[in-house]
Protein backbone atom coordinates (compact mmCIF):
# COMPACT_ATOMS: atom_id res chain seq x y z
CA UNK A 1 0.00 0.00 0.00
CA UNK A 2 1.36 3.43 -0.88
CA UNK A 3 1.83 5.71 2.10
CA UNK A 4 0.81 8.56 -0.16
CA UNK A 5 -1.09 8.81 -3.43
CA UNK A 6 -2.13 12.17 -4.80
CA UNK A 7 -3.33 13.39 -8.17
CA UNK A 8 -2.88 16.88 -9.57
CA UNK A 9 -4.31 18.32 -12.75
CA UNK A 10 -2.25 20.33 -15.20
CA UNK A 11 -3.77 22.76 -17.69
CA UNK A 12 -2.24 23.09 -21.13
CA UNK A 13 -1.06 26.61 -22.13
CA UNK A 14 -1.66 27.93 -18.62
CA UNK A 15 1.79 29.50 -18.44
CA UNK A 16 0.99 31.55 -15.36
CA UNK A 17 0.37 28.44 -13.25
CA UNK A 18 3.07 26.24 -14.80
CA UNK A 19 5.26 24.93 -12.01
CA UNK A 20 2.66 25.07 -9.22
CA UNK A 21 2.20 21.30 -9.21
CA UNK A 22 5.95 20.66 -8.94
CA UNK A 23 6.24 23.13 -6.07
CA UNK A 24 3.36 21.37 -4.30
CA UNK A 25 5.07 17.99 -4.85
CA UNK A 26 8.26 19.42 -3.37
CA UNK A 27 6.36 20.65 -0.31
CA UNK A 28 4.72 17.25 0.23
CA UNK A 29 8.05 15.40 0.03
CA UNK A 30 9.63 17.89 2.42
CA UNK A 31 6.87 17.24 4.94
CA UNK A 32 7.47 13.49 4.71
CA UNK A 33 11.06 14.29 5.62
CA UNK A 34 12.87 12.67 2.70
CA UNK A 35 16.53 13.29 1.86
CA UNK A 36 17.10 16.77 0.36
CA UNK A 37 18.98 15.51 -2.71
CA UNK A 38 16.19 13.03 -3.49
CA UNK A 39 13.59 15.79 -3.09
CA UNK A 40 15.57 17.94 -5.52
CA UNK A 41 15.66 15.15 -8.12
CA UNK A 42 11.94 14.36 -7.81
CA UNK A 43 10.98 18.05 -7.90
CA UNK A 44 13.04 18.69 -11.03
CA UNK A 45 11.43 15.73 -12.80
CA UNK A 46 7.97 16.87 -11.71
CA UNK A 47 8.72 20.38 -12.95
CA UNK A 48 10.12 19.28 -16.33
CA UNK A 49 7.18 16.92 -16.86
CA UNK A 50 4.66 19.58 -15.84
CA UNK A 51 6.23 22.15 -18.16
CA UNK A 52 6.10 19.61 -21.00
CA UNK A 53 2.37 19.18 -20.49
CA UNK A 54 1.83 22.96 -20.36
CA UNK A 55 3.92 23.56 -23.48
CA UNK A 56 2.99 20.59 -25.65
CA UNK A 57 0.17 18.66 -24.09
CA UNK A 58 -3.50 18.85 -23.96
CA UNK A 59 -4.66 18.96 -20.35
CA UNK A 60 -3.05 16.35 -18.16
CA UNK A 61 -2.52 14.90 -14.73
CA UNK A 62 0.43 14.13 -12.49
CA UNK A 63 -0.10 11.28 -10.06
CA UNK A 64 2.42 11.02 -7.22
CA UNK A 65 2.90 7.80 -5.26
CA UNK A 66 5.15 7.29 -2.29
CA UNK A 67 5.67 3.95 -0.62
CA UNK A 68 8.46 2.71 1.67
CA UNK A 69 10.64 1.49 -1.21
CA UNK A 70 10.01 3.94 -4.03
CA UNK A 71 8.54 7.18 -5.29
CA UNK A 72 6.59 7.07 -8.52
CA UNK A 73 5.09 9.72 -10.77
CA UNK A 74 2.76 9.04 -13.65
CA UNK A 75 2.24 12.03 -15.91
CA UNK A 76 -0.45 11.77 -18.57
CA UNK A 77 -1.72 14.22 -21.14
CA UNK A 78 -4.10 14.11 -24.05
CA UNK A 79 -1.94 16.29 -26.27
CA UNK A 80 -0.55 15.62 -29.73
CA UNK A 81 1.81 12.86 -28.58
CA UNK A 82 5.48 12.37 -29.43
CA UNK A 83 6.12 11.37 -33.02
CA UNK A 84 9.66 10.11 -32.48
CA UNK A 85 10.54 9.25 -28.87
CA UNK A 86 14.17 8.48 -29.67
CA UNK A 87 14.59 11.95 -31.16
CA UNK A 88 12.74 13.57 -28.21
CA UNK A 89 15.24 11.96 -25.83
CA UNK A 90 18.14 13.69 -27.60
CA UNK A 91 19.54 16.74 -25.83
CA UNK A 92 18.81 19.86 -27.82
CA UNK A 93 15.97 18.44 -29.89
CA UNK A 94 12.86 20.53 -29.39
CA UNK A 95 9.50 21.18 -31.00
CA UNK A 96 8.65 24.02 -28.60
CA UNK A 97 7.03 27.23 -29.76
CA UNK A 98 8.54 30.70 -29.69
CA UNK A 99 6.27 31.46 -26.72
CA UNK A 100 7.89 28.64 -24.72
CA UNK A 101 11.37 29.82 -25.62
CA UNK A 102 10.59 33.33 -24.41
CA UNK A 103 9.98 31.82 -20.97
CA UNK A 104 13.37 30.15 -21.02
CA UNK A 105 12.05 26.72 -21.91
CA UNK A 106 12.11 24.67 -25.07
CA UNK A 107 15.86 24.04 -25.20
CA UNK A 108 15.25 20.35 -25.75
CA UNK A 109 16.50 19.30 -22.32
CA UNK A 110 13.24 18.30 -20.61
CA UNK A 111 13.04 14.55 -21.22
CA UNK A 112 16.83 14.01 -21.07
CA UNK A 113 16.88 15.85 -17.74
CA UNK A 114 14.06 13.65 -16.37
CA UNK A 115 16.05 10.57 -17.38
CA UNK A 116 19.19 11.98 -15.76
CA UNK A 117 17.48 12.76 -12.45
CA UNK A 118 15.32 9.63 -12.07
CA UNK A 119 16.06 5.94 -11.51
CA UNK A 120 13.56 4.83 -14.12
CA UNK A 121 11.71 6.47 -17.02
CA UNK A 122 9.18 4.88 -19.33
CA UNK A 123 7.51 6.83 -22.12
CA UNK A 124 4.42 5.67 -23.89
CA UNK A 125 3.29 7.93 -26.68
CA UNK A 126 2.11 7.94 -30.24
CA UNK A 127 1.25 10.75 -32.58
CA UNK A 128 -2.30 11.85 -31.85
CA UNK A 129 -2.60 9.60 -28.79
CA UNK A 130 -1.27 11.74 -25.95
CA UNK A 131 1.72 10.93 -23.78
CA UNK A 132 2.29 8.94 -20.62
CA UNK A 133 5.47 9.19 -18.57
CA UNK A 134 6.18 6.78 -15.73
CA UNK A 135 9.03 8.08 -13.59
CA UNK A 136 10.44 6.21 -10.62
CA UNK A 137 12.93 6.79 -7.83
CA UNK A 138 14.36 4.13 -5.52
CA UNK A 139 14.31 4.79 -1.81
CA UNK A 140 17.48 3.30 -0.40
CA UNK A 141 17.67 2.07 3.14
CA UNK A 142 20.31 4.08 4.98
Amino acid at each position, binding site marked *: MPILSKRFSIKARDY*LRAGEVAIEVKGILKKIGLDAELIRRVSICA*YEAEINVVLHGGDGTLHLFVDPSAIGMVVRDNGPGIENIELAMKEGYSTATEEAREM*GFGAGMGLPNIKKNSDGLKIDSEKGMGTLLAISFDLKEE
Partner: protein
Amino acid sequence: MQLAAIKETLKANLLVGEDKLAMNIEAGAGGDLMSDLLRRPMNGVVVLSGLNTLQVIRTAVITGVAALVLVRGKEPDPEMVAEARLHGLPVLSTPFTMFTACGRLFSQGLRGIDQKLSE
Protein backbone atom coordinates in the same frame (compact mmCIF):
# COMPACT_ATOMS: atom_id res chain seq x y z
CA MET B 1 30.29 35.83 0.31
CA GLN B 2 27.33 37.24 2.22
CA LEU B 3 24.16 38.27 0.39
CA ALA B 4 24.67 41.79 1.80
CA ALA B 5 28.06 42.00 0.04
CA ILE B 6 26.47 40.83 -3.23
CA LYS B 7 23.83 43.53 -2.89
CA GLU B 8 26.54 46.17 -2.36
CA THR B 9 28.83 44.90 -5.15
CA LEU B 10 25.95 44.96 -7.62
CA LYS B 11 24.49 48.26 -6.32
CA ALA B 12 21.29 46.26 -6.19
CA ASN B 13 17.84 46.85 -4.77
CA LEU B 14 16.65 44.14 -2.44
CA LEU B 15 13.03 43.37 -3.33
CA VAL B 16 12.50 40.25 -1.23
CA GLY B 17 14.59 38.81 1.60
CA GLU B 18 15.28 41.59 4.10
CA ASP B 19 15.83 38.88 6.71
CA LYS B 20 18.39 36.97 4.65
CA LEU B 21 21.18 39.50 4.10
CA ALA B 22 23.54 37.57 6.37
CA MET B 23 23.09 34.40 4.30
CA ASN B 24 26.32 32.90 2.95
CA ILE B 25 26.49 32.46 -0.82
CA GLU B 26 28.94 29.81 -1.97
CA ALA B 27 28.93 30.27 -5.75
CA GLY B 28 27.28 32.08 -8.64
CA ALA B 29 25.63 31.19 -11.92
CA GLY B 30 24.07 33.18 -14.75
CA GLY B 31 21.56 32.24 -17.38
CA ASP B 32 18.32 32.92 -19.14
CA LEU B 33 17.63 29.30 -20.03
CA MET B 34 15.58 27.57 -17.36
CA SER B 35 16.72 24.24 -18.78
CA ASP B 36 20.33 25.07 -17.92
CA LEU B 37 19.46 26.05 -14.36
CA LEU B 38 17.57 22.78 -13.93
CA ARG B 39 20.60 20.66 -14.75
CA ARG B 40 22.67 21.30 -11.66
CA PRO B 41 22.31 21.45 -7.90
CA MET B 42 21.86 25.09 -6.95
CA ASN B 43 22.05 25.01 -3.17
CA GLY B 44 23.98 27.99 -1.84
CA VAL B 45 24.11 29.51 -5.33
CA VAL B 46 23.13 33.03 -6.38
CA VAL B 47 21.61 33.01 -9.87
CA LEU B 48 21.76 36.05 -12.15
CA SER B 49 19.15 36.16 -14.87
CA GLY B 50 17.75 38.51 -17.48
CA LEU B 51 14.55 36.53 -17.61
CA ASN B 52 11.91 38.41 -15.67
CA THR B 53 9.02 35.95 -15.39
CA LEU B 54 7.19 33.91 -12.77
CA GLN B 55 8.96 30.86 -14.21
CA VAL B 56 12.38 32.08 -13.14
CA ILE B 57 11.09 32.29 -9.55
CA ARG B 58 9.58 28.79 -9.70
CA THR B 59 12.69 27.34 -11.33
CA ALA B 60 14.78 28.88 -8.55
CA VAL B 61 12.49 27.41 -5.87
CA ILE B 62 12.54 23.94 -7.46
CA THR B 63 16.32 23.81 -7.80
CA GLY B 64 17.05 25.27 -4.36
CA VAL B 65 18.67 28.50 -5.56
CA ALA B 66 19.79 30.62 -2.57
CA ALA B 67 19.07 34.04 -4.11
CA LEU B 68 18.03 35.50 -7.46
CA VAL B 69 19.42 38.65 -9.07
CA LEU B 70 17.63 40.23 -12.04
CA VAL B 71 20.08 42.07 -14.30
CA ARG B 72 19.72 45.20 -16.46
CA GLY B 73 17.51 46.88 -13.88
CA LYS B 74 14.59 44.53 -14.35
CA GLU B 75 11.93 44.80 -11.68
CA PRO B 76 9.72 41.81 -10.91
CA ASP B 77 5.94 42.24 -11.08
CA PRO B 78 3.84 41.91 -7.89
CA GLU B 79 3.00 38.26 -8.65
CA MET B 80 6.69 37.36 -8.84
CA VAL B 81 7.37 39.20 -5.59
CA ALA B 82 4.50 37.39 -3.87
CA GLU B 83 5.70 34.00 -5.12
CA ALA B 84 9.29 34.68 -4.00
CA ARG B 85 8.05 35.83 -0.55
CA LEU B 86 5.90 32.73 -0.21
CA HIS B 87 8.93 30.49 -0.73
CA GLY B 88 11.48 32.65 1.10
CA LEU B 89 13.57 33.33 -2.02
CA PRO B 90 15.56 36.59 -1.84
CA VAL B 91 15.25 38.66 -5.05
CA LEU B 92 17.49 41.57 -6.02
CA SER B 93 17.59 43.88 -9.02
CA THR B 94 20.88 45.28 -10.33
CA PRO B 95 21.30 48.02 -12.95
CA PHE B 96 24.35 46.23 -14.42
CA THR B 97 24.27 43.96 -17.49
CA MET B 98 24.77 40.23 -17.06
CA PHE B 99 28.45 40.35 -18.08
CA THR B 100 29.29 43.27 -15.82
CA ALA B 101 27.35 41.91 -12.86
CA CYS B 102 29.05 38.50 -13.10
CA GLY B 103 32.45 40.18 -13.49
CA ARG B 104 31.94 42.37 -10.43
CA LEU B 105 31.04 39.37 -8.28
CA PHE B 106 33.92 37.31 -9.65
CA SER B 107 36.41 40.06 -8.91
CA GLN B 108 35.15 40.09 -5.33
CA GLY B 109 36.05 36.42 -5.04
CA LEU B 110 32.78 34.68 -5.83
CA ARG B 111 33.30 31.66 -8.10
CA GLY B 112 31.14 29.76 -10.56
CA ILE B 113 29.28 26.53 -9.94
CA ASP B 114 31.72 24.60 -12.15
CA GLN B 115 34.42 25.23 -9.54
CA LYS B 116 32.09 24.22 -6.77
CA LEU B 117 31.41 20.94 -8.58
CA SER B 118 35.06 20.15 -9.23
CA GLU B 119 36.04 20.29 -5.57
